[in-house]
């Protein structure tokens, strides 16, 4: 039971149970509220439905943008893709993001180890009955690691300079088995052989899409598709979803910081925004004990509107 409480020296909040009362049917109020929310949900669902754009499949990606698949495969083998250079939790390739000198990303450790080259090699090694693929893999395996990287990097660079990234227009060079390997990877993807091949570690059930998603994200096709649907990071994409659906408007403040400097141009934007949001959330939680902030409701008298009947009765 509440008793009088000191708000600050000389001021006590009275006990709510000491006020005059009126009849109030809580259960009826709840039942009506439940009926209203159920009816509104049903009506909105009936009118507006919900978005369900199909996921991008590996074969869909390979058919829509084959050059992107080839470039991504070459990049994975060269170790130049986003995932290959990511750092924790996938590998030790970089220090990752930091904020105020705190290397939070690195401190998390490599808990989800991913070898980006394996995103290409593992599916290729599963191919049987294709002598071209077998020969290319044998040639790759025969190369020392430095030569593998050099060949893959040279091919990735050449693809980047080729018109439209078209492998057919790449000039001759010292690419080793890379053209054959990436071509085999593209054939595998277009034929549907990549679906599910990266979702588990040799187990029948594959519920973990980490490696598939990293491969897809390393290409340009996923982001190009999202940007075309106004879902880019600089398009408030984190809180939106496809079409004109409301998405997650409650994440507006988190998304907002990505749109403005210094976060929009910072290499550590994610860590900075997260730390900022955690600080703001903590301030919101502890607001009752923060001088100044807790007094705003007294300074801006919105409460005069909320309790206008009570104040009117007091005046009379």
């Amino acid at each position, binding site marked *: 039971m509440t008793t009088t409480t000191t708000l600050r020296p000389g001021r006590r909040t*009275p006990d709510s149970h000491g006020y005059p009362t009126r009849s*109030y049917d809580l259960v009826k109020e*709840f039942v009506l509220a439940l009926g209203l929310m159920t009816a509104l949900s049903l009506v909105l669902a009936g009118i507006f439905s919900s978005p369900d754009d199909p996921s991008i499949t590996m074969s869909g990606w390979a058919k829509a943008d084959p050059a992107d698949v080839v470039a991504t495969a070459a990049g994975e083998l060269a170790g130049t893709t986003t995932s290959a250079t990511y750092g924790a939790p996938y590998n030790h390739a970089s220090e990752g993001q930091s904020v105020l000198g705190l290397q939070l990303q690195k401190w998390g450790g490599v808990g989800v180890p991913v070898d980006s080259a394996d995103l290409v090699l593992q599916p290729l090694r599963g191919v049987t009955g294709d002598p071209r693929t077998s020969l290319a893999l044998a040639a790759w395996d025969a190369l020392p690691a430095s030569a593998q990287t050099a060949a893959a990097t040279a091919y990735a660079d050449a693809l980047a300079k080729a018109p439209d990234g078209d492998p057919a227009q790449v000039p001759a060079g010292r690419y080793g088995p890379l053209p054959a390997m990436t071509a085999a990877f593209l054939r595998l993807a277009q034929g549907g052989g990549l679906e599910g091949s990266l979702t588990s570690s040799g187990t029948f059930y594959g519920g973990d899409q980490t490696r598939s998603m990293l491969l897809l994200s390393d290409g340009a096709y996923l982001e190009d598709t999202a940007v075309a649907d106004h879902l880019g990071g600089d398009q408030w994409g984190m809180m939106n979803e496809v079409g004109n659906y409301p998405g997650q408007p409650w994440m507006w403040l988190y998304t907002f910081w990505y749109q403005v400097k210094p976060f929009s141009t910072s290499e550590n934007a994610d860590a900075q925004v997260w730390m900022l949001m955690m600080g703001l959330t903590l301030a919101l939680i502890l607001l009752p004990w923060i001088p100044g902030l807790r007094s705003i409701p007294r300074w801006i008298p919105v409460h005069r509107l909320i309790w206008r009947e009570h104040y009117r009765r007091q005046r009379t």
Partner: protein
Amino acid sequence: MSTAPPDTGGGTWTAGLRDRLSRTVPADQLLPDRQPAYVASWIYVFGVLTLAGLIVVVGSGLVLSFGGAIWWHTSSLGHFVNSVHLWSVELFFACMVIHLWGKFWMAAWRGHRGLTWVTGVVAFVASIGAAFTGYLTQSNFDSQWISGEAKDGINSIGVGSWFNVLNPGQMLMWHIVLLPLAVGVIAVLHILMVRRHGVVPPLGDEEVSS
């Protein structure tokens, strides 16, 4: 003829728990049929609307769970239930945000109600997590894009090893078990605190202590 005094179970753990519960929220405060006269504004409705919204969210989620994670992609009924789930979430958040703002302008943390405010904000944050993991488990283009973007934020603060947004199996468990449980427990605590302390009195009614 003498009669034995009624056995009240004094000294037992059960009696202790019962006494503790009745002291925490007396029965007449748990479901009162009267409220202070100053409780007379539409803003008060948004608290119970938020609770009702949460029940519709959970209820539609339970129906979805009967069909499984991908049922709604292949069934028109499943798609409709998913739409109800989506819109109930939108309504739930809309009501919760209005409720939160209303309580802010009432300075509703006054009079030993600080923990009520804290549980309300924590419930809001946990609800954001629950909704977010829902978007990750849709198994469509939205979840591909959102998870691909969100991983950078989660990984940047070093928790990606334990909370892998690219793993829909893990996210589904968080979405349908851990986070709803957290939101539900916090919501119950929040409501019990509201009932225990009563609705905060109007600003300006403070008594000057001698």
